[in-house]
């Protein structure tokens, strides 16, 4: 068993590029989609001819209170170009007393943004009037520090007080997504070995069948786990993403997810016969799983019951639930146990089925 395992490790050392690139990609994607700029805000290009608007509290208020961030551009044509190219959904032009929102792509964000802007105008006017009437300067701060009553928020299940963190979502989502490729392509070596006859030769050697499976399983698990650990380490210690003090627990709780993905890959290897089939199945399975399981967007914006039911069959859903639960919601052990046990159940069932299928299909 250790022989097979060592061979695999040696092979990895000689061909490390797939592994390195996958790790790099998950870091890159998580950085691009949110981790890097520290916020998870939607940039809205904005233009105005009036300097007093640029310096007013209006834009500041929009930045502060919403998921939008005003980004001033120097001329109107540049603004239009940004929207026309489809790279921004919409933009805004502030005039003396009103505004125009220019829409390129219609989405709920437009409605959300319009409400935000209206609200900001409303508040801005109120604050101005109050400042004039009272003679005070920082009415906004005074009001914030002297509120009528306070509102404290908390999660349903968690003990922690309210936190929201978009960075963690993209980090978790892309790590869980890219690790599927790494694991799948490491399990894929079994298929290659079968085709090149190595698998048969190992069977002929005194190595037991279970040892072959255990060695392969361990190797695939290890490579996948090392990858997510590297990614998480980089984000924790270099990018300095806040794990809310649960970093080590997060690493521990990744184990069931990685196990489930190894099992899933074994199952896929069991069902396909050729390399081409495998190459066709993996992108379909991984991308659709990531979409259905909420790795790309949070599941609570999905309102189709069918899709939500479907997400219950997908390991990523539970992987995300565990990671979210432990970092943001402050779940206790009992609450974590449910998704963890489903992941372990998936591991057992899929490994069993996968090995059974692999034993039945003879590939030469």
């Amino acid at each position: 068993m250790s022989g097979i395992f060592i061979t695999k490790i040696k092979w990895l050392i000689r061909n490390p590029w797939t592994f390195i690139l996958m790790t790099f990609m998950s870091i890159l994607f998580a950085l691009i989609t949110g981790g890097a700029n520290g916020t998870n805000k939607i940039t809205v290009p904005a233009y105005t001819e009036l300097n007093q608007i640029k310096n007013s509290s209006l834009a500041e208020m929009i930045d502060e209170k919403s998921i939008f961030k005003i980004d001033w551009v120097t001329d109107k044509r540049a603004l239009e170009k940004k929207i026309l190219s489809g790279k921004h959904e919409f933009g805004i032009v502030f005039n003396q007393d009103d505004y125009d929102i220019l829409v390129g792509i219609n989405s709920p964000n437009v409605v959300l943004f319009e409400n935000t802007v209206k609200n900001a105008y409303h508040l801005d006017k109120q604050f101005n009037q109050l400042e004039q009437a009272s003679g005070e300067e920082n009415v906004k701060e005074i009001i914030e520090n002297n509120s009528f009553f306070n509102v404290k928020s908390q999660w349903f299940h968690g003990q922690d007080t309210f936190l929201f963190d978009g960075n963690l979502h993209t980090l978790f989502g892309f790590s869980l997504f890219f690790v599927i490729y790494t694991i799948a392509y490491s399990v894929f070596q079994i298929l290659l070995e079968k085709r090149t006859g190595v698998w048969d030769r190992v069977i002929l050697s005194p190595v037991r069948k279970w040892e072959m499976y255990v060695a392969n399983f361990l190797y695939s698990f290890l490579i996948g786990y090392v990858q997510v650990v590297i990614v998480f380490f980089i984000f924790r210690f270099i990018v300095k993403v806040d794990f809310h003090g649960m970093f080590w627990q997060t690493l521990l709780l990744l184990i069931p997810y990685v196990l489930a993905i190894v099992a899933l890959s074994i199952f896929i290897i069991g069902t396909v016969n050729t390399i081409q089939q495998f190459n066709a199945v993996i992108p379909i399975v991984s991308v659709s799983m990531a979409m259905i399981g909420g790795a790309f967007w949070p599941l609570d914006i999905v309102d189709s019951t069918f899709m939500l039911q479907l997400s219950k069959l997908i390991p990523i859903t539970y992987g995300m639930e565990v990671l979210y639960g432990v970092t943001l919601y402050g779940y206790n052990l009992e609450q974590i146990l449910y998704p963890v046990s489903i992941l372990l159940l998936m591991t057992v069932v899929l490994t069993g089925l996968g090995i059974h299928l692999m034993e039945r299909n003879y590939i030469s």
Partner: protein
Amino acid sequence: MIWDIVKKQSILFIRNPQQLILLLMLPIILICILSVSLSGFISGETFEIDAKIAMIEHTDEKEQIERFIQEVENSKLSEVEKKEIGQVAKNISIVHLLKDEAFADMDKLIDITMVSPEDKATVLADDSFAAVIEIPKDFTYNALNFYLLKEGNASEMKVYQNESKTLQSNIVKSIIDSFQEQMSMMKFTMDHHIDPVNLEAGDLEHIGTVEPIGKGNPVSSKQYYTIGMAVMNVLYVATAVGVYAFIEKQTQVFNRVILANVSRWTYFSGIFVSGVSFALIQLLIIFGFSWIVYGVTWPILQFLLVTVCLAFAVGALSVLLTSISYRINSESVINFFSNFLVALLALLGGSFFPIGDIADVFQLLGDFTPNGASMSAYLSLLRGDEFSQTIPYLIYLLLFTFCLLLVSIFSFPKRGQI
């Protein structure tokens, strides 16, 4: 002769159903998933949030206000003050205002259930509620004391948010926050003895406009994703063509073609032409699907022009992948492209979401990817802009094709190098 090579490539494709499944099923599956799971959310015009919230009130508010007024009556304040405070207190039933006015504004999408304090644990365990608002004992009473008599501290209400319904619960929270802000402003006018008229901002409902840019309609999210998935998946055609070409080198088919006195440049052109035609066919099938199922329609002539330009770019990509893999004698470059670069190009090109929303650098990069450029062109067509808007993108695509072809010709192994 080129035709024969193309024919050979087509037969290879048809005999390999797995590859076809990947090329045709993947985009269609992805378009379906995107539109089914995000259908309510991305329908565009409306923003429908159906939220169910529960409210727990520990003591009845009316009783608290009456108690407060009673206590004021019995205090040592002057009669005028007593009367004034009593008047104001009657109008400040915070819980009532929150429940019947702040939430009622939201087009009745928020459904409030009153719950008795004993059932708190039950509602918190019920995932159908987006949020639970808990008003502690004597909340209004304490608030009135703080507000009118400057006694005690500000009272505090608790909002429990459901972590599996963050979107809805955040909206509920923001309504409460803005309600709190307005109430605090009122307190400010009271503290500074200002006329509350200053809080009226007038009618701001029609202060601004929301209008589509250009002349036509804005693009809906469904259309956006159809284009995004199509331009992303067409890149896989390049990898498929490249893979077959490389297998031909490995299995000596390429050498046999050369032996048959066919110029290597004929083979080269054959690869290019098959890349272009398969990309064209794939794009037409995907857009055909979205036309039949989702009713995404196009100005046909311009559409074909953009599609052809994109297909050219994909053809050039296939040739480039082929010639590099021939040169380094390994298909790793093709694998690298299909596993990493396609996803990266798709992200930068805006297939998943409008990339410029994040940062301008990415927008610039996105315009330089073939899929990003063609996506911009498609979007402009759907919006009904003048055709001149799309011309820079088309020129870019053709330029891209030309440069890639040049590089491929340069790196394609010459005689004796294989």
